[in-house]
């Protein structure tokens, strides 16, 4: 390692002459690999090898083995795409996304505007709404499952309902009506609203005050009009980032579903199903890999489509 240091030092002092420059490139090449090499090797081994291996497994009958011999072509893909459980996990995801994405967007923007609008104790409120980010989904699920929505008399939700004379509701196991969505959606809202609120606050603080002054001079009414014509359009980049991150995070839902309802067919997102297929009792790594790749492709397409529509990543 000291040799590398010396050669790059030499390059640092001799960049002006032609000869030194050539030597410098060789020296900086060593330095480049010293800095980038360790990361690159790890990325190839732990990033690319698994993906290629997964692609390989997805074309084989790979039950309980990672070095299969029985080539089955596209059968694993066909199996997954016609598997009612996999398809219903996609429906579960879609329903979940339809609830969680707009709710998170509207409520985190609302919180950001609320917090940004007060002049006293702003840091306090920001901290309170941000604090749940410190909780894991497991801890939050524990609180939701055992203390708030436990479906018995002493649960907080049922205690509050009983003040209004409403009978106990078995929140997590009532399928008709689908009460289980209330704990599943509220736990995620509590955990992630503060995170997206911070993104919106950062976005709000980047809006130049001159715009507001100009709007004021032009006679825009404070409140709705200013929000509609100044604030919201200026938050365009942030809004797209929030929607995109939110949608991807919804697709990867695992922790709260696993801990709140477990491996049940009425509320099982794709990752929980794939976990049970590939690491549960069947250990079908071929079908699991095929499902994971289908999921990855769908997420990539959604990301690309959204970027095209909204022009995400372009200078705003």
């Amino acid at each position, binding site marked *: 390692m000291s040799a590398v240091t010396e050669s790059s030092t030499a390059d640092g002092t001799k960049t002006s002459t032609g000869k030194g420059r050539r030597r410098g490139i060789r020296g900086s090449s060593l330095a480049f690999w010293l800095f980038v090499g360790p990361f690159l090797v790890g990325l190839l081994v732990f990033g*690319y090898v698994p993906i290629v291996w997964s692609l390989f497994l997805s074309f084989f009958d790979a039950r309980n083995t990672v070095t299969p011999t029985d080539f089955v072509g596209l059968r694993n893909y066909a199996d997954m795409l016609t598997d009612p459980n996999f398809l219903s996990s996609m429906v579960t995801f879609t329903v979940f996304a339809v609830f969680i994405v707009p709710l998170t967007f509207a409520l985190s923007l609302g919180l950001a505007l609320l917090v940004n609008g007060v002049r006293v104790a702003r840091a306090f409120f920001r901290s309170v709404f941000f604090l749940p980010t410190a909780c894991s989904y497991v801890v939050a699920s524990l609180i939701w499952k055992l203390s708030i929505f436990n479906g018995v008399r002493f649960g*907080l939700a049922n205690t509050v309902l009983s003040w209004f004379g409403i009978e106990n509701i078995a929140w997590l196991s009532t399928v008709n009506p689908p009460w289980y969505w209330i704990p599943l959606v509220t736990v995620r809202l509590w955990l992630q609203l503060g995170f997206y609120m*911070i993104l919106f606050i950062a976005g709000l603080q980047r809006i130049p005050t001159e715009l507001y002054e100009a709007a004021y001079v032009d006679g825009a009414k404070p409140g709705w009009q200013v929000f509609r014509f100044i604030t919201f359009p200026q938050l365009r980049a942030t809004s797209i980032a929030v929607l995109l991150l939110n949608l991807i995070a919804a697709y990867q839902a695992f922790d709260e579903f696993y801990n709140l309802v477990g491996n049940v067919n009425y509320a099982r997102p794709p990752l929980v199903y794939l976990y049970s297929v590939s690491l549960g009792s069947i250990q079908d790594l071929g079908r699991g890999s095929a499902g994971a790749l289908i999921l990855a492709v769908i997420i990539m397409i959604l990301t690309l489509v959204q970027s095209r529509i909204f022009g995400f990543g372009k200078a705003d």
Partner: protein
Amino acid sequence: MATTTQPAVRTTGTPVPIGHSRGPMATVAKIARWAALLVTTLVFLVPFYLIVRNALSTDADITAPGWKVFPSALQWGNIAELFNDSEVPMARALWNSAVVGVLGTGGQLLLAAMAGYGLARIPHRAADKIFYLIVATLMIPAAVTFIPSFVLVSSLGWVSSLRGLIIPGLFSGFAAFLFRQYFINFPKELEEAARVDGLGYWRTFWLIVVPNSLPFCAAIAAITFIANWNAFLWPLVIGQDSSSWTVQVALSTFVTAQTINIHELFVAAGVSILPLVLIFVFLQRYLVQGVAETGIKG
């Protein structure tokens, strides 16, 4: 929210900050705003209250027919009970989480910062290609690759080991990407001065660049540590044996199996969020900066 009904344009005086116009409707709006803030604050704090209340109650208090806002007597002994319970490997799980959190965060930061610096500052013809390789991994969500990663790690014999928990997570394309973008915008003057003084890349990086990037590193470190500490899917996949459970896996096992006293479980939950609450208190500023930084660019 109708903030005001009167014309907003006043002919004299300084511009009124938006949302702070005067008049009776503005007062109503102000009250509504504060009411909304206080109610939301209460709702957001309820789960924390439940952790503390249940952790310091007897099970009889928790399941009492009428809601007990406070336990009839604070059961401080619950904490000792959790750590003395031989059925529950919570001390071991906390240790595992601490090791994974510290080594995972430190290693990820070190590797990503070095790679980011190399890509941003050391001219090399492979730099662009390597950068594309990194960006390409950002397209594939990590949660989707848990099956192939498990396959790889199990073939290395790393299942149920700290190596298996830590090493695959060290090579975060996202962190390397963030560091590269950060170092590209890092002022060049400091480094040029160092080079004139005869420092090579290695020493310039450690003596000049890193000390001047500490706020950014702290922001990324705080975010990474929280993510590592709270990670669940990967530790669940790898932790086949209870000796390699992290705190999250241990908690989950008891929640889904319900073989433990409720109060003990809530003590464990409280203990598990304590390190993160401390990070929040001491690193709040960097944390907010980090979220704004990493979130927007994600």
